[in-house]
């Protein structure tokens, strides 16, 4: 009887995921094993692992590594900036500050990412007024690797509001009395935050980090708009295969590899976090 209702409640969602994600991804996995015939519109006969083998070349491993490296840096930064931001938005004694910060975060969520990325190109690009600031990160604005800085900035602009809002939820769930209690025991405010609040918020911090990482590695517009053709994410490689040269089997192989890696990293990291920070 009870089992019955659970089944009915879960069935629509699971069915939808099976149909619209499971089915297509399985089809894609099959496609990735087909040979590609250059210049032809049809896949070849038989089966092959060549598209996966190709990805083991050092150059392609570098693309995977670059995607994850930039993703990890940006997720870390968004946690470092997002936590104080969220904390201020929840605990600032001034209502105007709280409201202003929340309005900014919600506002950014509503604003189109494309428009924001374009704004970043104008502000931080090699002609932008902020370019000298960006150059402090080690690459002159005209250097090809400055594109990495640009893509990182774009991704951070994308993840930071999301991370901060998630942490607003986390911090709000924690009672301010905890810090007051710590203070009454003689701890300074920053002490109280570090020793009491942060451990309690750890699961929220971990999940915000993972969401940010997932957002970065599957993002595709930031490298497209800001990458100058030099910063190539695996998503961009995939897109080129699918859309520009019509090599579906190879694009499918990259997609499947990326999917497996993303799951391994995200679930691996969350398992690790669960071990380090017991709930």
């Amino acid at each position, binding site marked *: 009887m009870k089992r019955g209702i659970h089944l009915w409640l879960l069935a629509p969602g699971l069915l939808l995921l099976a149909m619209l994600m499971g089915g297509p991804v399985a089809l894609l996995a099959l496609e990735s094993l087909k040979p590609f015939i*250059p210049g032809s519109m049809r896949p070849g006969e038989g089966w092959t692992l060549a598209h996966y083998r190709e990805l083991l070349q050092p*150059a*392609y491993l570098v693309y995977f590594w670059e995607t994850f490296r930039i993703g990890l840096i940006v997720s870390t930064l968004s946690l470092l900036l997002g936590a104080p931001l969220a904390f201020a938005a929840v605990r600032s004694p001034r209502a105007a500050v709280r409201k202003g910060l929340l309005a900014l975060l919600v506002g950014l969520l509503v604003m189109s990412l494309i428009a924001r990325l374009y704004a970043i190109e104008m502000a931080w690009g090699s*002609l932008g007024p902020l370019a000298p600031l960006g150059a402090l990160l080690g690459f002159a604005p005209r*250097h*090809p*690797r400055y594109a990495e800085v640009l893509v990182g900035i774009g991704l951070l602009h994308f993840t930071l509001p999301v991370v901060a809002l998630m942490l607003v939820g986390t911090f709000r769930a924690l009672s301010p009395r905890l810090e007051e209690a710590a203070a009454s025991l003689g701890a300074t405010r920053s002490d109280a935050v570090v020793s009491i609040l942060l451990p309690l918020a750890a699961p929220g911090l971990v999940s915000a980090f993972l969401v940010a990482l997932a957002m970065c590695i599957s993002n595709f517009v930031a490298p497209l708009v800001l990458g100058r053709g*030099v910063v190539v994410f695996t998503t961009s490689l995939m897109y080129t295969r699918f859309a520009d*040269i*019509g090599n579906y089997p190879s694009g499918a192989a990259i997609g499947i590899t990326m999917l497996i890696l993303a799951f391994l990293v995200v679930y691996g990291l969350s398992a690790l976090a669960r071990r380090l920070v017991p709930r």
Partner: protein
Amino acid sequence: MARIIASPAVNRRALLGGLAGMAGAGPVFAQPRGEQLLVVMWGAQWIEVCRPIGEEWMRATGDRIQWELHAGGAMAVVGRLRPLWPRVPQNLIAAWDPVFAAMMEAGWMEPVSETEMPALREIPDAFFKKDAQGRKMTVPLSTAGAFWGYRTDLVTGPPIESIEQLLEPRFRGKLCVPVPVNLSGLLLVSLAMQRGGNERNIEPGWQFLKQLAERGQIGRVVANNSEMINAMSAGDLSVAFWNTGGWQAVRDRFPCRLLTRLPDNKGFLFNEGFAVMKGENANRVAAAKRFANHFATAPINTRYNMPLGSGPTNINSTPAPAIADIFYKPDELERFAYIPDYAYMSSQVDAWTRRWETEITPLVRRG
């Protein structure tokens, strides 16, 4: 359900189409019902010159023209349409030689004839792509080219007379080049020819390209017209390899020199135009042919090519003054221009792209 929900936007467009029809007044008013055509065009100046031509056509005929923009190179449309074929809504696709070859191989294109499209009589036979039975398959609108060139206001020192000079330190980080998908790899062919190769002997091109990338000469890799135009307008890049249309937009703003007469290398010529797509709706295909024919007529052909810096194909059209650069006399044609095997190139783009990803991008990134 989805259709019902989606309909307001469609109705709005229909309404606009109707209004446009009425604005024309006169006899036009008598035929408000026309075909809806989906035409794929390049962005930048291409779409800017086409939109008013399309609006006039809508007023005159009652047909409705919806423009779709190529995202990146024209080849991308082939990749995007493949899974959908034959259920594709596009009626006309602006494309050029390699893309024509790919679409012809797929059997997507409708043959064109002078009886249906009288303006084709005024276009020399040599410009058409033909199928195995010798039927004309394309509507050639322009003769365009791809060349090296540079902004003379930014390049100091001796002028560029050979692309070997691009290895000099003064061009470090100054080169703007297309990805191999774009222009179907003409950049590589150009570099290969500099070192004694061609499209079928491409290896020397890779070696030259690697040298350029290793020395940090390549500052920017672009994937479409607007990226090239913007990159070359910004002022941090001074040399590029690109098509005449992109160059024309840069030349409108800054002094440029196109290297169309290099003593030790050649420029490339190709045809751009429309492919008429096969379709189930015969009336719509006929309307698409009428619209393409309109572009082939001398006055529209002149107007279309003017801002693109390309040569008109209709013998009665007037070429733009700007194309003097690529207007070769017959004896020059042999010396300075080259028409590679575009069909062969389009079959190599996949392999070239991977090689670019594995060998060139890592070098370019190092700067």
